[in-house]
């Protein structure tokens, strides 16, 4: 179960979540849980401008708000959807990796969670009978959550309807195939 629990959050989120919790705890002491003025993003509705602002804040010690920045950037992108937005997010995440804010793996998982058809939630080094089947319901729930993120990234931000459709279809196919495969695995153990 611990594997599945940790998969609910991307590695980037896991690390930053810890930092964020500490930051929130610290700011709570002063009666304020929202970003301090110096950590708030600029109000621009232009994605390049918003990304520049996010880079500026992250570079100025506001790493704890990374999740919030991603959320705001996706919102800005949804206001002006464009296939090129995928590139903008990719470059932003590569920058976070090169700046040492995220590991390369964390940057990859974050980008793929939002902008790739493949599911970050569906990975592991062991076979499906051993790894996936015992926690199939949780895996499917995680994939459902990830599909919602792909809706924001692929569909709303990038207008990639084909990609989003394929991700949706992949989820359905995975559900069917895992149901059959896990029954077959269980029958083998009988």
């Amino acid at each position, binding site marked *: 179960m611990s594997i599945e629990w940790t998969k609910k959050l991307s590695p980037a989120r896991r690390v930053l979540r810890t930092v964020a919790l500490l930051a929130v705890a610290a700011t709570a002491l002063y009666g304020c849980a929202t970003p301090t003025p110096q950590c708030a993003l600029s109000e621009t509705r232009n994605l390049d401008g918003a990304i520049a602002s996010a880079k500026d804040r992250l570079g100025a010690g506001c790493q704890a708000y990374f999740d919030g920045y991603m959320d705001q950037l996706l919102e800005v992108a949804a206001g002006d959807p464009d296939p090129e937005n995928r590139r903008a997010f*990719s470059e932003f995440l590569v920058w976070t990796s090169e700046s040492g804010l995220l590991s390369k793996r964390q940057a990859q998982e974050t980008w793929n969670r939002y902008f790739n058809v493949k599911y970050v939630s569906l990975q592991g080094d062991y076979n499906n009978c051993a790894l996936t089947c015992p926690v199939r319901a949780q895996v499917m729930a995680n994939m459902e959550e990830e599909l919602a993120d792909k809706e924001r990234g692929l569909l709303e931000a990038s207008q*990639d309807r084909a990609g989003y*459709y394929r991700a949706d279809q992949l989820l359905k196919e995975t559900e069917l195939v895992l149901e059959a495969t896990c029954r077959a695995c269980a029958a083998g153990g009988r």
Partner: protein
Amino acid sequence: MNPRLSTASVYGVAALLLAAPLLAGAAKGPALQLFPTTVLEDIKETGQVAGEMETGLQDVIARLDRQQQLYLESKCDGAEEDPGCARIAKQLGATYMEMLQIMSDRLPDMERAVNGTRTSLEKRLRGELGLKMTPWTLQETLLGNQPDGTEPAQPKLRGRSGLRLSERFRQYYSLVAQSGRGSDHSLAVVASDIYLDMEEASVLIAQTREEIGRATLLEELNQSFGVITPEMQQVVNGVKSILFGESGQVIELAGPPPGLDEMAYDSPLEW
């Protein structure tokens, strides 16, 4: 299995299925072995047995429907003492027993064929998708290697509604043959679909056989049927559902939205 398929074409398709993975494997590693000839033979045989059973039961089920309709239209429900109604009820009981007898004769073959298909697919699914693949390779297999902007060859699935059992198997066979020319991802989905269908059919057949045993025992105890009881109706519906399909909702994968966008950008972060 479609009886119109000749033996030559069956072997032709089988040869194609065997050859296609070999050709594909040269380019992208080991291919899925979900439908070897033994599994194809099982599917073919199940279709044939289903066809024979349908032929045998079609008339008797139609007669049963007519008699039941007559019973209802004659307002016999609650008027069992009426001699005319008693006669219809007796005929109903006799037809029902006739149906059970035909099924009793045919079901063992059907059960064997369905279980054979289920077992062989079960073994393949466990080995190929359960034990040889990780979650990641499974999703890569399902996703296939579609060039950007092209449509994956999707099988039309979920044959559980509105189809005769023999027709379902004919379609299964056709799907497997088409998928064999296509990619592994279709095969995985088709194999899963057939396997789950066989599991469902297997349970229904077992329930029906139990009911036949119960009804035969009642007959042996000389308890004649007055009317079609809910249990009898359930059996008749089950038989219709297995053999002749049902009018439920067809579960289909969603269709693509209009206007497919091209994936113009490949991120260095992409897996």
